[in-house]
């Protein structure tokens, strides 16, 4: 969808609020840490990463820009767990008090660290067909996409770039957002900055994107 989330290349934003801190939760409020913990703890049965992303994208544009990143996550969980019937929105108007918990035990921390390690794994899936494109080939991105979830940003549409690597097949986000796993060949495509931004861009700068085969057409 051509949504507000697709920020790449939009103009009118001010300077980046650069920070240089090294601490583990850089600038986090306590509520943001709770959202991180919830994200690893809530039972996301049947939910996919792309359904989660699409739910965030479906926030009204005015709200999207005014809502902090982890507050967007919280809103997405409220929506997803209302959508699947776990909660109703009026439930959120009468929360019960949370008990005070002390510091977590060493065993509890070890358990989540083990869970994190066990969750590691590639998204690569067996290929059902040979790749349509080869490394080194020039390709063109699609000019028009659909109104569902996908991962081809506006700034990189209808543009010629060169395939610099191929990663086998990965689940197509468009299908994952609808609850279906459809592996498709994934490539890294490198674009000249001048192709994307015009002749004033530095001649030796590039932008690389990971793009699925159906986002590409022969050049």
């Amino acid at each position, binding site marked *: 969808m051509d949504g507000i*989330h*697709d920020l*790449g290349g*939009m103009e009118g*934003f*001010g300077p*980046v*609020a650069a920070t*240089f*801190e090294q601490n*583990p*939760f850089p*600038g986090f*409020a306590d*509520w*943001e*840490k*709770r959202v*991180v*913990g919830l994200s*690893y703890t809530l*039972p996301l049965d049947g939910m996919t990463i792309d*359904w989660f992303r699409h*739910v965030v994208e*479906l926030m*009204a544009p005015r709200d999207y820009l005014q809502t902090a*990143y*982890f507050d967007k996550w919280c*809103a997405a*969980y*409220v929506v997803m767990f*209302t*959508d*699947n019937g776990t909660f109703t*929105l009026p439930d*959120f*108007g009468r*929360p019960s*008090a*949370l008990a005070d918990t002390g510091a*977590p035990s060493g065993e509890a*921390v070890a358990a*989540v*660290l083990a869970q*994190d*390690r066990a*969750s*590691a794994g*590639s*998204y690569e899936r067996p290929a059902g067909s040979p790749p349509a494109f080869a490394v080194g080939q020039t390709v063109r991105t699609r000019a028009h996409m659909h109104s569902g979830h996908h*991962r081809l940003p506006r*700034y990189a549409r209808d543009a010629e770039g060169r395939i610099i690597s191929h990663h086998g097949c*990965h689940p197509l986000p468009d299908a994952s957002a*609808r*609850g279906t796993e459809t592996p498709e060949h*994934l490539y890294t495509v490198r674009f000249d900055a001048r192709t*994307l931004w015009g002749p004033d861009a530095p001649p030796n*700068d590039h*932008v*690389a994107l990971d793009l699925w085969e159906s986002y590409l057409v022969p050049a």
Partner: protein
Amino acid sequence: MPTFEPKRAAAIHRDLHSHVPSDPVLRVKALESLAVERGLVTSERIDAWVEAYSEHIGPKRGAQVVARSWLDPGFRTRLLDDAASAIREFGFEGDATGDLKALENTPEDHHLVVCTLCSCYPFSILGMSPAWYRSAEYRARAVREPRKVLAEFGVTIPDDVSVQVWDSTSERRYIVIPQRPAGTEGWDEDRLAAIVTRNAMIGTDRHLEIGAP
């Protein structure tokens, strides 16, 4: 099961305002307390995750990987070839690093990582992202005017150095391997790791400070 119905999700987003507190502190508290009440989560488990990201999972992991790549050419080769496997040598594999790619800065190239569409980040190797990485300003501008963004971090890239921006549009994640600064000959891994900044591993830092001799 989710309905996977975008219209339904958008409608819930609109209705949410009349029912759910707008203050994120209250909103998150409401979500956690309801999830606890229904037996979906325990606050203790959430505490454990917060502790894991406070004490164990963070940019120190990435810094150690970078330091080893400077000291051990065999490891450097494995890291550049397949970073997702190489970080298993440390037990650093985890969330969002199953398809990790290491990007090596050179005198000719500078790498910069962004996720314009959401804010994807290699959590198990770099921990939680800084607020600027998740900001609309960075997501909008890093692809279009990376040199100006870098200047806001105090980093000037000469014209003859190529800037390579990587937009994390798939589940592949990126970590930048900065160049080892001169004056660090003979340093051990821990001492080297201590000078590797979080920003350098995202690409908004280039020349690492080695501190007072």
